[in-house]
């Protein structure tokens, strides 16, 4: 073995001292930044200026203050997933989907959720689909003075939007955009197994605890990738010298762990109607006695799905475009996962510009 020569078995020996120096500097930075990390609060999230238009228990409707001199005629109502907070779409300036839409000249409203109180355990699917969403749509119409509304649903917010759009097929929804929205719940294989009707007694659970605790929701998400939390903490330690990495880690980690409980009766309906009987896919779904058939939805639709989505796999989402009644329909498959599709650096480059170019022509 010789120490001479610029390259030995692919190793550039000349670069070793510089590399050692970099690693020593990073090790020192890790110790300093590690202490900073422990003692400081994370970045302030969801800070785009907004006003609350309506608030009823778990339901909150926000209006974001327009920033453009001129806006598109049709306002947007974003329906957030009921398991998570809406600030995933409004992280920090420069990484906020809401800010992006406002700057592009859209008038944006969001239906966001807070933790249902114990007395809200009796909220049913019909409360969400036949009451909360129509109430918010009416508020948006009244506030904006426009009859038409574009609805954007993220994950289960997309499912609620589909149920609403099918039952209220005559309007006022003008466009529908769904992000990673499952239709065939058989294809959510692990969730299927967790809720196997032979072993999962949903009635016992709901009757015992009322609202389903957020810890249970969070652990069922984390069980889909059990090693990822530990691996991400190793990554954090390696990159703790990098302020941008740490900022991004803290934003996403805070959001991911800020899971909401689910109202008991609503969870019971999701389990029985969707996970067990797959009623949305089988066209046998009813909400409050009203038949749901997504073929009744005829408005223009864009469905954005993620190539590496471990929560809503493509097989669970792909039937949406095939089943919907719209003529003007498009599915776009983008690189990324369930969250990175809509937020973070990838979304800034991929989904957001695509959505803007699709929606602007349908917003006048």
């Amino acid at each position, binding site marked *: 073995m010789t120490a001479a020569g610029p390259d030995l*078995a692919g190793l550039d020996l000349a*670069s070793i001292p510089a590399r050692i120096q970099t690693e020593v500097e990073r090790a020192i930075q890790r110790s300093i930044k590690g202490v900073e990390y422990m003692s400081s609060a994370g970045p302030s999230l969801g800070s785009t200026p907004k006003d609350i238009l309506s608030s009823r228990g778990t339901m909150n409707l926000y209006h974001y203050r327009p920033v453009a001199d001129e806006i598109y005629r049709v306002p947007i109502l974003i329906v957030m997933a009921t398991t998570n907070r809406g600030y995933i779409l409004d992280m920090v300036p420069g990484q906020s989907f809401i800010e992006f839409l406002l700057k592009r000249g859209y008038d944006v409203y969001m239906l966001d959720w807070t933790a249902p109180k114990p007395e809200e355990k009796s909220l049913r699917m019909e409360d969400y689909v036949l009451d909360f969403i129509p109430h918010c749509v009416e508020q948006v119409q009244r506030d904006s003075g426009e009859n038409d509304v574009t609805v954007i649903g993220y994950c289960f917010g997309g499912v609620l939007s589909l149920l609403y759009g099918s039952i209220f097929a005559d309007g006022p929804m003008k466009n529908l955009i769904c992000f990673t929205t499952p239709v065939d719940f058989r294809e959510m294989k692990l969730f299927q197994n967790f809720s*196997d009707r032979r072993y999962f007694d949903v009635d016992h659970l709901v009757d015992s605890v009322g609202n389903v605790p957020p810890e249970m929701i969070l652990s069922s998400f984390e069980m889909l990738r*059990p*090693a990822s939390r530990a691996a991400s903490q190793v990554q954090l330690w390696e990159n703790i010298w990098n302020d941008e990495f740490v900022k991004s880690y803290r934003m996403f980690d805070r959001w991911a762990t800020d899971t909401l409980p689910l109202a008991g009766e609503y969870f019971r309906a999701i389990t029985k109607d969707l996970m067990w009987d797959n009623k949305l896919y089988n066209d046998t779904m009813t909400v409050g006695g009203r038949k749901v058939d997504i073929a009744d939805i005829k408005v223009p639709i864009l469905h954005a799905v993620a190539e590496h989505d471990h929560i809503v796999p493509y097989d669970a989402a792909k039937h949406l475009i095939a089943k919907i009644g719209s003529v003007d329909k498009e599915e776009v498959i983008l690189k990324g996962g369930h969250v990175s599709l809509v937020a973070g650096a990838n979304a800034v480059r991929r989904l957001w*510009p695509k959505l803007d170019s699709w929606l602007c022509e349908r917003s006048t």
Partner: protein
Amino acid sequence: MADKSSDPVALWQNMIGEMEKGFNAFANQAMASPQFSKAVNQMGGATAGAQKQLGELMEKYLVAMNMPSRAQMVGMAERLQSIEGQLNEIKAMLHQMQGGGAATSSGYSRTPRPPRTKRPPSADGEQK
């Protein structure tokens, strides 16, 4: 600089990534079995019952100790949140008044809205 295949740090990171993928795949396979579902749900069912009983017991204990329960603390946090929200609204109204605008009685500041006349960039030659 050494290329990625010979960089020990890159190799370490790659190894962690591969281990994560491998473990996730292995665990997913194990979790897809009916035995896993049975075991987890038996455990979960027992925990849910125990949790309910323990919660009720704790509630009684805290009342006896003259201490607030979790539900009361959550209620207080929500009230604080609502006060914070109202403060923000007051702040927004003050800003509004300072700027010469009017605020509605509901507290929702009705700033003059931009006109809804925007056209898609391609229609008026504007760059995207």
